[in-house]
């Protein structure tokens, strides 16, 4: 009995060591871009590009972190001169996201209540060649397209992790609802 107890005591720390270290979640905010979200790890910003038939070529702003082999990415692009085309630009981006992939979920997304609501979509796909699983949310408001993507990489393998949902559902466009201690996002230089 004493041997069992000792063995149990010895194995407990090993189990703790085997669990991967997960970074704490922090709130991030951009007053300039008008949104806030939560993510774990160190969020870094970088410029990017996007091209769609309707959207045309676009510069993007990407905010990205990786934690526990899950990639968290927010992409923002501006369409201030084409706001009335927002529905088509949003639809095109959603379509391109899932094109050629196995769609597991495609449902309504809605942020903020009542007349402040912003409607979008939430889509989950399996990436080709066992590349992992991405859950994404898409919104277009005030001339900007916002895409939140959480990709569970094969090295993580827990494709049902709630962290993907936690990330994409953390977005808010009402900055009064953002965490008071949210970190201001650095806008990437072009």
């Amino acid at each position, binding site marked *: 009995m004493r041997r069992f107890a000792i063995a149990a005591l010895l194995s407990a720390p090993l189990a703790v060591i085997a669990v991967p270290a997960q970074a704490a979640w922090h709130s991030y905010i951009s007053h300039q871009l008008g949104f806030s979200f939560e993510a774990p790890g160190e969020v870094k910003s970088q410029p990017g590009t996007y091209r769609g*038939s*309707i959207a045309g070529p676009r510069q993007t702003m990407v905010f990205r972190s990786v934690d526990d082999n899950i990639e968290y990415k927010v992409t923002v692009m501006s369409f201030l001169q084409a*706001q*009335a*085309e*927002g*529905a*088509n*630009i*949003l*639809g*095109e981006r*959603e*379509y391109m996201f899932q094109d050629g992939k196995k769609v597991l979920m*495609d*449902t*309504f997304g*809605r942020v903020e209540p*009542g*007349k*402040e*609501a*912003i*409607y*979008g*979509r939430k889509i989950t796909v399996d990436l080709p060649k066992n590349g992992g699983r991405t859950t994404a949310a898409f*919104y*277009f*408001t005030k*001339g900007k397209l916002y895409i939140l993507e959480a990709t569970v990489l094969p090295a993580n393998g827990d494709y049902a992790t709630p962290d993907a949902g936690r990330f994409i559902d953390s977005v808010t466009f009402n900055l009064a609802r953002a965490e008071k201690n949210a970190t201001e996002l650095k806008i990437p230089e072009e």
Partner: protein
Amino acid sequence: MRITVLAFSAGFGLVLAAAPAEAAWRGYISHPLGFGFAAPGDLKVEKGTYKGAVAGSLDAIVYRSVDDNIEYKAIVIDTGAEANQSATLLGEAEYIFQDGKKLLMDSFGRVDGHYGRKLTVDLPNKGGRTTAAFYFVDGRIVSLQATVLPANGDYDNPEMARFVDSISFYTVRAADDAIELPMPK
């Protein structure tokens, strides 16, 4: 043998008599609204009102026909000064359409460079089945909705899809003999 042929002919005649009369499909077009579609039956126009939490109360134009207990509706909602919220207004209209109903299909729609959605719902209280398409074009929400009523009962009827898929936003693609849709008085 002759008796068999006669019996077959008589039976065929009965089948024809039993089948409901279906009106011919016609092409319709609206140059001012920038779209066209095809529908059967006698199409009538009326004014309507659309309400949404975000959209508020907006004027709508409804083109409607009923044939073989299937209701065909083309609804045009002018979003006016709110057009810059097109993505949310379209999403809200789609959400309201399916809210509280059994959703059977929700997929991408893509017509003439416009992205939208196609949805099928079962109506509450066995009220029938509706297939709809939603698009946002030139400041307007355009929705085609076909409802198979219980009196028809053929809920897999391909006429629903034929109707919602007939929409075009390139008026040059409308049928040559398409009828110009009237504006409501």
